[in-house]
């Protein structure tokens, strides 16, 4: 039976009709091959507009639908649904964009009308060749893996677990807690970081629905939404977690050290024990030590003479023979929460980090402030003395063309927190060297105001250099910060005892690797790309993979927690659906045509194209395919076709564009 195409032309008020001569376009469309009816309406997307086409479909007047209106990105779904309600396969509908890419962007109304005609002719030709596609559903495994056990991962895991869903939390380090566990106080409220974090860590450790894998890394992710296979490497701790009770006898007697034996105060900074067998910090979850084989005397010595910890352990938990273990499991969804790492300031030679004593990073200063750390929370110079003056340099590695363009969003605030802590703990003079103060969060500006009254010197200017070469008596034995004070218009040299570099945040070194495993893209800034910068901040281009926290962009704790909860609720919404519809417009191999040349095998970013050794042909895993069409263009024999974007459909569109000539 002949194809009957219905063409609906939208006025969009005057948005289209103001520039496109609708009457002429209607006349034109009536003359097109296979078009059996043409209608125009003020607002096609309105209920009556949709009803118009729905009814024509219902009445059997047409079996293909073309709507010429706005962008398909705007209303393709709306009209697909209307088409479907009328009883036609939704893929038998197509759209001509005569608003965003036509009436809104051109001046001459004649040319705009001509363009609208061409676009409609193209859509009509395409419609003629459209094929119905079947909707496809896959079941969703209710278990979720959360990669990363910082505050983002902890929050997401707890949300899901509380909702009664099983979660596997995989953490790279020996304990969960992430960066937050290294903080003493949190801005702007100055509540104790450990006090708010520890209870959550304990809940994670004890929750019946959470399986915790610390000191573990995701090795491989395969499968697709609802049905992922995860392979995890559990690194050998050399301490049996079933037997260990965390008493600490092992590290108390351990003769080795992970820090330089003769190092200064700053070099010896640590939160937990500095021995090779250690817990990263005292509140660690799980409270089980781990042996650092790089520094452990037993492992360093071929004769394995030491073995002291094993002798000390009453429960016999030490196992030097322990090996890495590979664990595989299945999940339905993935939340990536791998967090950030801080910028390494040693690349900025001018600031002298790593070269000059008493230049330290923010994170080191953070550890020094921790009451349970190696200085007992005291702020000390490298030689153990009390600093009389401290400078804090903002934007180290951030807002800098040479390193990262972006603002790291937390440095201003933690720098203010440092000023406050320094003032609280010492009599030191404090300088903040800033470019702009960015105090945007709740209570942040108030905190800044408060600091302004705490006798902190704010110097607006980017620091040129930090040096220990004096030019006068007053500078001898000091660090000299050279800075242009832009508010007084002078270059200043300020001698100080200590300098803190407020280093920016960057995506973790392993982020690209994990992103690749999960088929998620990393942006030019080094962070994961979300599905939509505004409307899809926790989902990604890969269904079933969600992101939370600083792996997406630099974030403070409240934003991280919020995003983590958003990610977990997105996962819950997936789980509750039980099934998910997946892309219908996929690529497909005609096995009768495929010669097994394997050219397409490397092309798929989702690894959906695989070679079937038995049949000797390549096959596209329909559940994995996202319909990009790269393999189709790469298939030399034309054996792969792209449903809904077939060669002949695109050819027809091209012909349509020129059919009016």
């Amino acid at each position: 039976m002949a194809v009957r195409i219905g063409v609906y032309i939208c006025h969009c008020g005057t948005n289209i009709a103001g520039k496109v001569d609708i009457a002429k376009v209607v006349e034109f469309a009536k003359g097109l091959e296979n078009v059996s009816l043409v209608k125009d309406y003020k607002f096609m997307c309105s209920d009556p507009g949709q009803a118009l086409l729905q009814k024509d479909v219902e009445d059997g007047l047409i079996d293909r639908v073309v709507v010429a209106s706005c962008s398909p990105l705007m209303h393709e779904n709306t009209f697909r649904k209307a088409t479907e309600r009328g009883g036609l396969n939704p893929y038998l509908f197509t759209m001509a964009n005569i608003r965003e890419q036509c009436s809104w962007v051109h001046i001459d109304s004649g040319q705009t009308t001509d363009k609208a005609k061409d676009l409609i002719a193209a859509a009509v030709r395409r419609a003629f060749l459209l094929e119905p596609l079947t909707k496809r559903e896959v079941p969703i495994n209710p278990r979720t893996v959360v990669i990363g056990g910082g505050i983002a991962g902890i929050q997401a895991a707890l949300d899901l677990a509380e909702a009664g869903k099983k979660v596997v939390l995989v953490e790279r380090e020996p304990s969960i807690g992430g960066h937050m566990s290294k903080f003493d106080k949190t801005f702007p409220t100055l509540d104790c970081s450990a006090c708010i974090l520890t209870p959550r860590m304990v809940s994670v450790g004890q929750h019946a629905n959470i399986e915790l894998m610390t000191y573990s890394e995701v090795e491989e992710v395969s499968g697709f939404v609802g049905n992922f296979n995860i392979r995890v490497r559990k690194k050998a701790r050399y301490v049996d977690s079933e037997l260990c009770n965390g008493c600490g006898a092992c590290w108390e007697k351990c003769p080795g050290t992970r820090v330089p034996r003769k190092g200064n105060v700053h070099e010896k900074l640590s939160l937990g024990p500095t021995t090779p067998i250690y817990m990263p910090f005292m509140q660690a979850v799980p409270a089980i030590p781990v042996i650092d084989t790089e520094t452990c005397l037993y492992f360093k010595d071929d004769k394995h003479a030491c073995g002291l910890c094993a002798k000390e352990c009453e429960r016999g938990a030490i196992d030097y023979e322990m090996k890495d273990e590979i664990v595989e499991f299945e999940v339905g969804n993935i939340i990536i929460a791998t967090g950030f790492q801080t910028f390494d300031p040693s690349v900025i030679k001018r600031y002298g980090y790593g070269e000059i004593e008493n230049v330290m990073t923010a994170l080191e200063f953070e550890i020094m402030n921790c009451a349970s750390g190696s200085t007992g929370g005291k702020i000390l110079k490298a030689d153990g003395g009390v600093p009389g003056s401290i400078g804090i340099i903002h934007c180290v590695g951030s807002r800098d063309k040479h390193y990262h363009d972006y603002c790291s969003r937390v440095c201003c605030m933690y720098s203010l927190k440092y000023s406050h802590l320094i003032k609280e703990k010492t009599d030191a003079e404090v300088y903040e060297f800033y470019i702009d103060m960015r105090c945007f969060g709740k209570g942040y500006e108030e905190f800044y105001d408060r600091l302004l009254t705490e006798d902190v010197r704010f110097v607006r200017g980017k620091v040129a250099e930090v040096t220990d070469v004096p030019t006068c008596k007053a500078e001898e034995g000091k660090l000299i910060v050279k800075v242009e004070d832009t508010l007084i218009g002078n270059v200043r040299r300020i001698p100080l005892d200590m300098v803190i570099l407020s280093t920016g945040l960057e995506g973790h070194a392993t982020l690209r690797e994990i992103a690749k495993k999960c088929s998620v893209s990393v942006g030019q800034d080094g962070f994961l790309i979300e599905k939509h910068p505004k409307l899809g901040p926790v989902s990604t281009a890969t269904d079933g993979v969600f992101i939370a926290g600083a792996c997406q962009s630099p974030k403070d704790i409240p934003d991280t927690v919020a995003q983590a909860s958003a990610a977990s609720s997105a996962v819950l919404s997936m789980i509750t659906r039980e099934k998910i519809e997946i892309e219908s417009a996929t690529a497909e191999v005609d096995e009768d045509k495929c010669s097994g040349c394997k050219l397409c095998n490397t092309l798929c970013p989702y690894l959906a194209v695989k070679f079937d050794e038995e049949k000797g042909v390549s096959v596209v895993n329909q559940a994995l395919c996202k319909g990009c069409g790269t393999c189709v263009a790469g298939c030399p024999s034309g054996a792969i076709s792209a449903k809904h974007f077939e060669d002949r459909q695109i050819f027809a569109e091209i012909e349509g564009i020129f059919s009016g000539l």
Partner: protein
Amino acid sequence: MSFEPKIVGFLCNWCSYTGADLAGTARIKYSPNLRSIRVMCSGRIEPTFILKALYEGADGVLIAGCHPGDCHYQEGNYKALRRHRMLRMILPGFGIEPERVRLEWVAASEGERFATIVDEFTEEIRSLGPLKVRDSLEMVLSEDVILNLDTAMEEGGDANEA
């Protein structure tokens, strides 16, 4: 009337088509010479499509994809880039200036850039002049046309005697 080029655009759904839509939302004005075809990824765009568009009457073809590193499908745009570089090599053999096929990266946020590209490209094509592959082919074929067989035989049947 001055020559109004007709340009076919192949735009990837996620960056370039969205960027083109943004130019619309922002009401940025640009030349009306482009007719876009939406594909999911610039990796889908085959040289065949471009040749087809040129054959059908396009004076120029614009391929637009996500910026390197930003592809929604990770690496489709690199394939588009390589295909484009190779296509450029063979176009002169068909008597077509490689400049008539342009590849650009347009991000979803680059509405203004999209408009500028279309304007610039339109002007470049305008200065190159009309292409008219099909017309030129038809003209050549008409020079070669053989008279209708029956009439030919009636008129010159004897000439075939060998």
